[in-house]
Every structure is written in C-alpha cells, then in structure tokens.
C-alpha cells in the first residue's frame, strides 16, 4: 500500500470521533444535494414531459403562412378561421424531399407530414368545432405515439376511419364503430367511422383533436397532395431552437421550436435551476469548511507524529499528500453515505407527494450521472477543503513539533 494512503487511513482511524462526525456532515450535505437535484430534475422532467408529450419539438410551415396566434398553434384556431373569410391553406413545397432531408439531420429523430385545419364534427343535431389532423400514422408515431394513448379501439386511419379524443366522444355520445360527419370550409364533407378513442392527458386536446389519414385530410382541406406542416422531433430537446434556426436557414420554411412557443415556461425552469445550483453551492461551501476545520484540528493534534515522520525522512510533499488524501477519502466515503441518504429522502418524498390514486405526482430523477457527479463534487470538495490544513502540516517545523511532551 502506498505510504501516504496508509498514513491517511491511520490518521482518520485515530481521530475516530472527528472522522465519524465529519463523515455524517458530508453525507448530510451530499444527501441534500442529491435530494434537491433529484427533486428539481424530476419536477422539470415531468413539466417538460407534460408540455412536450403532445407537442412536436419543431413545427415547420410554408414561409408565407400568415402569423397565427401562437398559443393556439396546435389547435388551429377555429374561431379565428370562422370569423375570417375561409382561406386556402398553403402547402409546403416538395415536402417528401424535405422529409428525407430532415431525417438525414443527426439532431432529428422523427419528422412527420401533417395536414391541419379546422372543421365541424356533426352527430345528429349536435356539433362541435374540432381541429382536424391528417397524419401519416407510421411517421406520426415518432412525434406522438397515439397507439399507447388509446383507451378503446385501434389507431386505424385507413379509408374513412377516424380516431377522436375521449372528451369529444363523451360530448357527442360516440364509441368505437359509430359514424361521425366532418365538415370543412367550402362545405367539403365526409362521413367517418370511429376506429379508436385516445386520451393524451389534456382535456382540451381530448375534445378538439381528430385524426384522419393524410389523404382524407388533404381532401377535406382542399390541399390535394400537399401538407400544411411538417412536425419534427429532435434528439436533445434543448437544442430544438438551434435546430429550428438551422432548418429555417436551410429551407426558408417558418420553423417554430417548442422553446420559443413556451418561453415563459423555459424562464421558469431556468430560475428553478439556478436557485437549485445556489443551494448546492452553499452546501458545498459548508461541507468544505467542515472538512477544513476537522483537518486543521487534526494537524494540530498530530503535530508530534508529523514531526516524527519528518525527522525520519518523510518529505514535505508526502505530508501534504497524507492530508490531501484524508480530505479526498472523507469526501468520497461521505458522498457514498450521502447517496444513500439523498436517495432515501427523494424516494420518501416521492411516496409522500402522490396523486390520489397513489402514483407519484412526479418521479424524482435519481440517475447514475447524478450519483457520479456527487462523488466527484465531494472528492473535489474534500481536496480543496484539505488544502490549507495539508499545507500547514507540510510546512510544520519538525524541530518544534517534537520538542515538548
């Protein structure tokens, strides 16, 4: 065993009580860091999940498409359309080639063509305005996998099959197998058979979204062979804006990322992150001071032994390393305790804060990366905290250290 490591372990063992207390302190600190990180991380993940669960990361439109109210990008603002004279949807030019190009981009995981417009759903005397979405089921599953969100039936859009949300079904008294008439502007109209009901976890969307095949969408929207938007998913959700700008630059299409459409949410998340970082920073400082003060005391207590070691040929930098190692060891061992504590706290919290049905409100984000980062941070904290005491030990005058009993 390395001499320095041997001595570091001995010294830590000799200072049993101090070692145990500071380890408890480090564990508490690291536990808090893990708990807060997991909590904030999980919360943010769940917020983003909820936001992006039904949204494409980037939506592409024809360049001269006029501005729509942004908040209703998804819902194809029906009222606006009704008040204005019916206007022709524009198609994205040469969209099949665009799709191929998009899918070739390394940052893009999925791209799907969509015909989106507003229509009326009629059933007997009841009618509702709906957001019609003509999609290609195959590629659309990369954007939003509706198959996993079905409560009834199948996700079948062949022929004149249609998939509607559970809320609309409730409102119009529909179930799988029933028929439903959709009427689009300029009185284009078609009768569809319901093949499935979905629930995307958003009441509004469950009421307004209806999915038909791309071809039926094109027919109803009078967009023969065209698509009104292309929806894109990216690998790293926080690179969505960058990706959008690159696509815009390359194609001239209007490209909106979820980040510009949810900028307030993003600001909120960033604020949350920075306060979490602040808390962690001060916890680290406190842990560092704790380690430093324990080792300062240890250097004083071990003065005689250090003097003996120096008298018998131990070099200054060896003494320095003995104490740096103690800091590092305390950090690493303490962080292992902290991982256990933080994990326990996070899981406990998760079990306390739950929905009525017992499922957690949001899952805490306990990841291997978080654990690894915590160990690393604790190691560095230990080394930095040990630096001054170690210097002090190394510079100790051996003649003074061994003089008096």
């Amino acid at each position, binding site marked *: *065993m390395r*001499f320095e490591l041997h001595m570091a372990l001995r010294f830590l063992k*000799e200072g049993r009580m101090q070692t145990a207390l500071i380890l408890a302190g480090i564990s508490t600190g690291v536990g808090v860091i893990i708990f807060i990180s997991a909590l904030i991380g999980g919360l943010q993940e769940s917020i983003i999940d909820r936001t992006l669960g039904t949204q494409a990361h980037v939506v592409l439109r024809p360049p001269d498409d006029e501005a729509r109210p942004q908040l209703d990008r998804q819902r194809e603002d029906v009222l606006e359309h009704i008040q204005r004279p019916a206007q022709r949807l524009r198609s994205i030019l040469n969209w099949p080639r665009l799709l191929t190009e998009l899918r070739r981009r390394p940052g893009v995981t999925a791209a799907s063509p969509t015909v989106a417009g507003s229509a009326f759903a009629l059933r007997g005397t009841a009618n509702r305005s709906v957001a019609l979405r003509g999609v290609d089921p195959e590629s659309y599953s990369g954007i939003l996998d509706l198959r996993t969100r079905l409560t009834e039936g199948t996700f079948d859009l062949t022929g004149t099959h249609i998939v509607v949300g559970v809320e609309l079904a409730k409102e119009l008294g529909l179930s799988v197998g029933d028929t439903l008439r959709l009427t689009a502007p300029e009185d284009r109209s078609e009768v569809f058979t319901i093949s499935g009901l979905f629930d995307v976890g958003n009441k509004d969307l469950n009421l307004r979204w209806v999915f038909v095949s791309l071809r039926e969408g094109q027919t109803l929207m009078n967009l023969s062979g065209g698509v009104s938007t292309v929806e894109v998913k990216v690998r790293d959700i926080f690179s969505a804006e960058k990706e959008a700008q690159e696509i815009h630059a390359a194609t001239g299409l209007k490209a909106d990322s979820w980040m510009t459409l949810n900028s307030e949410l993003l600001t909120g998340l960033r604020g949350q992150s920075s306060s979490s970082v602040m808390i962690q920073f001060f916890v680290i400082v406190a842990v560092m001071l704790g380690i430093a003060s324990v080792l300062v005391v240890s250097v004083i207590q071990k003065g005689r032994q250090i003097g*003996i070691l*120096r008298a*018998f*040929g131990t*070099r*200054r930098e060896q003494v320095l390393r003995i104490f740096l190692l103690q800091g590092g060891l305390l950090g690493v061992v303490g962080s292992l305790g902290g991982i256990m504590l933080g994990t326990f706290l996070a899981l406990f919290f998760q079990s306390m804060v739950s929905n009525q049905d017992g499922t957690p409100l949001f899952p805490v984000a306990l990841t291997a990366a978080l654990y690894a980062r915590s160990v690393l941070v604790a190691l560095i904290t230990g080394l930095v905290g040990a630096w001054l005491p170690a210097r002090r030990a190394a510079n100790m005058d051996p003649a003074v250290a*061994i003089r008096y009993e």
Partner: protein
Amino acid sequence: MNNSSAILQLQQVRKSYPGAVSTEVLHGIDIRINHGEFVALVGPSGSGKSTLLNILGLLDRPSSGTVEILGKDCTGLDDAGLTRLRGSSIGFVFQFHHLLPSFTAEENVFLPMLADTGHFKPEMRTRARGLLARIGLEGFETRPVSRLSGGQQQRVAIARALVMNPPLVLADEPTGNLDRASGQQTFEFMRRFNRELGTAFLLVTHDPGLAQRCDRILTLEDGCLINENKSSEADLKGALTAMR
C-alpha cells in the same frame, strides 16, 4: 583523526531564536563526530543540548556557521535535500519515545523505510523483526506500542533509529524517563549496537554514570562547549552532581 572518518562536523555554529529580545542559545560551537564513536553530551538544563542536537540532526538550521555531514556542506541544501540526507544518515531517539501510538512495534520500526520508498515490501517487516529480536523484543512485534512499557517503547525507538542503517544516531536523553534498571538496559543495547554495527552515537544524558561509560564527553554550558576531556572524571562527576 583524519577528515575521512568524520561523519559530522560543526564549525562556529551559532543559533538564536527570534523574539522580542533575540536570544542566542549557541555561541560558536565546533564539534566533530567520527565513525563508530560513542559520545556523551552533558550540560545543565537550558544549556542548549536539544537545540544543538536538532542542528546536528538537520531538523533545524544554524543562524550561522556550517554543518557538514559525511564531508558534505548542508548550508545550501533546501528542505527536500536536508530531509533526504537526514533520512539516510541520521537516526533519532527522543527523550519521550515519540513512537506513533496506534502503530505496532514493527510498523514503527519499518516506518522510515516505508517513507523512503513509498511502498511496503515484505523485507521491511523482516528487517524490523530482526532488529526487534536483537533488542530483546521478540514476541512483541505486532503489539501496539501504546501497550508496551516505557523501557520497551524506548527500545522500539532505538530499533527504529537503526532501521535505515545510519552512520549516526542522535539520542536526546533516551534514558531520562526510565527507571535505573531500564535506563541501564537501554544504554547497554546502544553500546552493543555501537560495537556490533559500528554505528556512532551521540547521547545526551544527565546520568554521570552513563556519561562515564562513553568514549568521549562533550559538556555544554550556556551555549558553549567547555570541556572535551575524559581525564577530569572527578570534576565532571562533581559538576554533574551539583547540577542535579
């Protein structure tokens, strides 16, 4: 005596401690210690014996004057150089044994070797055990030193001082804290190592009987060496008795 047999040579060494009033503790000391010698250093309390020993042992630097070890001037050496030279050429035995309390006897003994190479090797343990056996501590090798008697601890300290096979061992009142019998025994062991291994010893002692049994006696008084003569035994005895 020719120069080549000198282990250690001090010339005009002065030492003052800085303070409100700077006090000079050593006033121009000349000492020469040769290979294989067994030398006593005596003198009243506060006369500067420990200070001198620290300078001889490269634990402290003189304020002026030169220290030569094995013909090499140490004045210009930095701390690392001094440490290396100290580790290889000088062993220490302190008045209070100064062992590492939580270590076993053999660990204390091979510690200087461990510090020297950085890695443990089984030969170190073998060598430590050999020395402990020679100093009558067979069977105590793996006992923590805190559970040894004062005399046994001092013998462990002697074994430790010898483990690097240094040409010189500096012993500051090694028997001062022991009863007469253990003091005698400890002294005998040092004398024997001196004879068998040829290690030189410089021994600070307040015991005139022990000083008499050394090859040479250096007497320090108020920071000056006043007597380097073994012939005036009666004077010395008188002086030492008066001191007590």
